[in-house]
């Protein structure tokens, strides 16, 4: 059969039409689409039964309660825990990525020893044990120990070991709890300051970043949530006073701009107005305090703090009008403040009748030590690591022969960080118990990997900022990596090897003893429940007027511009650096590539002759950082806001080399009266780069 041209074209047209009406091309396209997306290097989902375990975060400073979702034995999500008093259905931007942090590239996977050429070599635990025992024995009491865990019973073990070695040099990393403890001592009170935010109808946060990072922040925010029905008038007023319109100011009903480091003067200005309006308090030194407050007239406070006088008066009026007002003083970046500003804040609460009152300030009971020879919490908080480092630097104290760090990263987190690293270099032997290879680990001779909070049994006892005494356990929910060891049992065994008797055999015994001391039921704690106590310490504290008078004197900061560090939990902490899942939350004009952006308002930029994106150098006698300019009108005049948590020189690709560390610019001073190290009033000069 001959096929003519017409027949051929008909055939082609028929085939084309036929193919088009069949599913063949569509199926092929579909398959091509599917199979070109199905590559072996793309991870597949692994199914399994889901279970949920309640625990508490040891990674997030808010000690947020959380429910961990496991698929099989893999933790895949960290979820809020409605039943935990430090979560109340919320979770922090840091803790929410904790399951992913288990697999962080910065994790230390096995013990590391610094070799002669300065490089790290992996060693066995036996070798690490022998080296640590040898060095600590050789140190013969010339030992210092630094803990970055503020709420755990590990401090009992560490301080006992340090004490039994013949040293009193056990320190906690700086935080807000230390000036608060000094303030309580100066008032002649006892216990830990607690803040009943839930029951307050007017919360004035002076410096304290209560909706982003201060204290038990997720619980603070649960209280904020509870008083704010969607789209309706709030049932409680939140006011924030600070130099930057930060996340707390964004949520607050009112932002009162005051200069960094002038929280105490602002509080005394309020006290002055309250006393003028007839407020009084039943304290032995009321008249001395009234005399001091009398000098803080609105005009003087405006000059010292930069506050608008009318705003100051309005706040005082609103406090008097409120039924259950609460005043919280603190530092915008969670450290570096003196006891005087806490004392001034407590004084305002006392004038408002807010001590041990519902919706006020409370004195919470603190459990005693549970390990032989351990320091009390008050003793621990009385020790000042920055002052110790400064003394070593000045040659007033000898550098110890050995220094042991536990989940602490002083080489990054202390003020004048570069100087602190220099001082650390004077210590002949340094060992660290750490989860991540941080800046301090990079300076150490021995790095001992410890499990993360999700992999170990640990505890949390009444974090600073909590409104009530509480105790709960972090329970191991994930399998521990092969070559890491929990520090509690390890240190107890190490102490035994060194011939010290801590009076406990295991870490679990320590926790059980702490639970008893807190009045908690162990079985209930192990079921994931939280022990909460409503008891308070009965006290009739004084104002601590003498100490306040000495400490409140503000010194002029260096340079023409003030530095206001901005602390945000999403950027991580010194211990975690920026978690891999969190760097997307850093704003466009906070960090670009490796370049830091600092924020200033338009007036300041005009004064400096700079525009957005211009390169500048911010420097003072402590150090200098280079950055680009972002214009943000929520910053006070002559102030530059610098995001904390950047400029890591260790960790992983998510953190290392990004931006600059603002701690380099924070200069240490000492508070008159208490002698406490302070660094909340840094100044700098700014020049175009």
């Amino acid at each position: 059969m001959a096929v003519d041209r017409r027949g051929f074209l008909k055939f082609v047209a028929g085939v084309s039409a036929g193919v088009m009406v069949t599913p063949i091309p569509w199926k092929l396209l579909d398959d091509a689409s599917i199979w070109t997306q199905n590559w072996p290097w793309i991870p597949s989902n692994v199914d399994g039964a889901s279970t949920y375990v309640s625990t508490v975060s040891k990674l997030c400073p808010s000690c947020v309660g959380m429910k961990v979702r496991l698929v099989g034995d893999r933790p895949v999500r960290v979820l809020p825990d409605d039943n935990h008093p430090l979560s109340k259905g919320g979770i922090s931007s840091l803790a929410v990525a904790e399951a992913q942090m288990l697999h962080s590239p910065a994790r230390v996977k096995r013990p590391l020893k610094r070799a002669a050429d300065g490089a790290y070599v992996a060693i066995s635990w036996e070798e690490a044990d022998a080296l640590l025992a040898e060095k600590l024995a050789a140190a013969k009491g010339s030992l210092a120990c630094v803990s970055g865990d503020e709420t755990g019973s590990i401090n009992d073990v560490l301080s006992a070991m340090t004490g039994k070695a013949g040293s009193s040099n056990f320190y906690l990393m700086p935080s807000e709890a230390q000036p608060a403890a000094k303030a309580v001592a100066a008032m002649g009170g006892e216990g830990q300051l607690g803040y009943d935010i839930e029951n307050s109808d007017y919360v004035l946060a002076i410096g304290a970043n209560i909706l982003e990072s201060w204290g038990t922040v997720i619980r603070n925010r649960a209280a904020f949530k509870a008083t704010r029905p969607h789209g309706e008038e709030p049932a409680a007023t939140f006011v924030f006073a600070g130099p930057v319109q930060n996340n707390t100011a964004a949520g607050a009903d009112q932002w009162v701009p005051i200069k960094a480091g002038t929280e105490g003067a602002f509080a005394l200005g309020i006290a002055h107005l309250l006393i003028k309006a007839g407020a009084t308090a039943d304290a032995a030194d009321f008249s001395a305090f009234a005399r001091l407050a009398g000098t803080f007239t609105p005009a003087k406070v405006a000059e010292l703090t930069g506050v608008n006088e009318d705003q100051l008066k309005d706040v005082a009026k609103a406090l008097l009008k409120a039924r259950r007002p609460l005043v919280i003083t603190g530092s915008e970046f969670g450290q570096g403040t003196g006891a005087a500003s806490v004392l001034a804040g407590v004084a305002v609460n006392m004038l408002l009748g807010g001590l041990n009152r519902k919706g006020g300030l409370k004195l919470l009971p603190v459990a005693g030590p549970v390990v032989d020879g351990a320091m009390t919490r008050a003793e621990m908080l009385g020790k000042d690591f920055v002052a110790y480092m400064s003394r070593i630097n000045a040659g007033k104290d000898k550098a110890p022969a050995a220094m042991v760090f536990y989940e602490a990263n002083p080489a990054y987190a202390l003020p004048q960080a570069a100087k602190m690293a220099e001082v650390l270099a004077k210590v002949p032997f340094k060992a660290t118990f750490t989860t991540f290879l941080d800046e301090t680990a990079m300076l150490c001779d021995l790095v001992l990997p410890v499990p993360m909070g999700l992999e170990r049994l640990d505890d949390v006892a009444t974090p600073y900022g909590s409104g009530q005494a509480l105790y709960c356990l972090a329970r191991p929910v994930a399998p521990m990596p092969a070559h890491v060891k929990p520090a509690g049992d390890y240190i107890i065994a190490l102490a035994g090897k060194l011939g010290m008797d801590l009076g406990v055999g295991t870490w679990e015994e320590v926790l059980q003893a702490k639970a008893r001391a807190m009045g908690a039921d162990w079985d209930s704690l192990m079921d994931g429940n939280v022990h909460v106590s409503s008891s308070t310490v009965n006290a009739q504290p004084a104002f601590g007027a003498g100490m306040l008078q000495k400490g409140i004197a503000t010194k002029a900061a260096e340079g023409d511009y003030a530095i206001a560090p901005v602390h945000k939990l999403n950027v991580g902490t010194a211990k975690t650096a920026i978690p891999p899942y969190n760097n997307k939350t850093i704003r466009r004009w906070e960090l670009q590539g490796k370049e830091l952006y600092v924020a200033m308002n338009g007036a300041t930029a005009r004064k400096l002759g700079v525009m957005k994106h211009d390169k500048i150098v911010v420097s003072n006698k402590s150090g200098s950082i280079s950055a680009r300019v972002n214009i943000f009108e929520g910053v006070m005049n002559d102030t530059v806001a610098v995001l904390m948590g950047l400029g890591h020189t260790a960790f992983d690709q998510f953190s290392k080399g990004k931006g600059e560390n603002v701690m380099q610019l924070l200069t240490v001073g000492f508070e008159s009266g208490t002698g406490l190290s302070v660094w909340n009033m840094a100044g700098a000069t700014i020049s175009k780069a």
Partner: protein
Amino acid sequence: MEIKEFKVKWGMAIDLDKCTGCGACMVACQAENNLAPIADASNKIKVMNWLVVYELSNKKPFPEHDVAYLPRPCQQCGHPPCVSVCPVVATDKNEEGGIVSQIYPRCIGCRYCMAACPYHARYFNWLDPVWPEGMEKALTPDVSVRPRGVVEKCSFCHHRFMKAKDKAIAEGRDPEALADGDYVTSCAEACPNGAIVFGDLNNPDHQVYHLSRSKYASRLLERLHANTQVYYLSRREWVRRQLDNYLDNEKVKG
């Protein structure tokens, strides 16, 4: 074009006066929906984020300045501009609940939908997702991982919707009449400030039904008539004004 209506319409009411911009919702979203981390996240054009928290400013100089934060998930438009432009029906709005779907294996990566979306809620995988070694163990089993060449977007945690329906069926309840709170997205669940309320916009028993009718509620770029299912609430007039392109002399709702 006619707007598709459903008996059940999942939506959000986000109170911008309660959001403080902490970013917990963004991190929770990534972990729940298996978005890969990226070493340099400062190139915001190429970073994959189903939910972004934007910063709003009243543009006044210090000290009159005010700030607000706006979390932006997919707005799940009633009349989705992305659906009508997709040449392969990889995205559609036809399921009870009114969630705009995104079928990854069907997507050919033409990015018409991205061009059409007025909210920049869609993201294209320029690169294959890479997790640091071992971190793939923390992937949830609920959401498939998307490869290079595919567009993705917020699904209102659709897998949670399926689970809630399965649970309702197992308990003998009507899966089309879920109670308030039976199904919530990961971002709404995580928010410590309770700024995000999620529920059925058509069900008077759900809080979001009433919030969407608040005098302070309005939608992003409302006058495009995309009829979105995400409502924003603010008592601040300047915040509501920034939700659409209002002229200076125009009056804003609320």
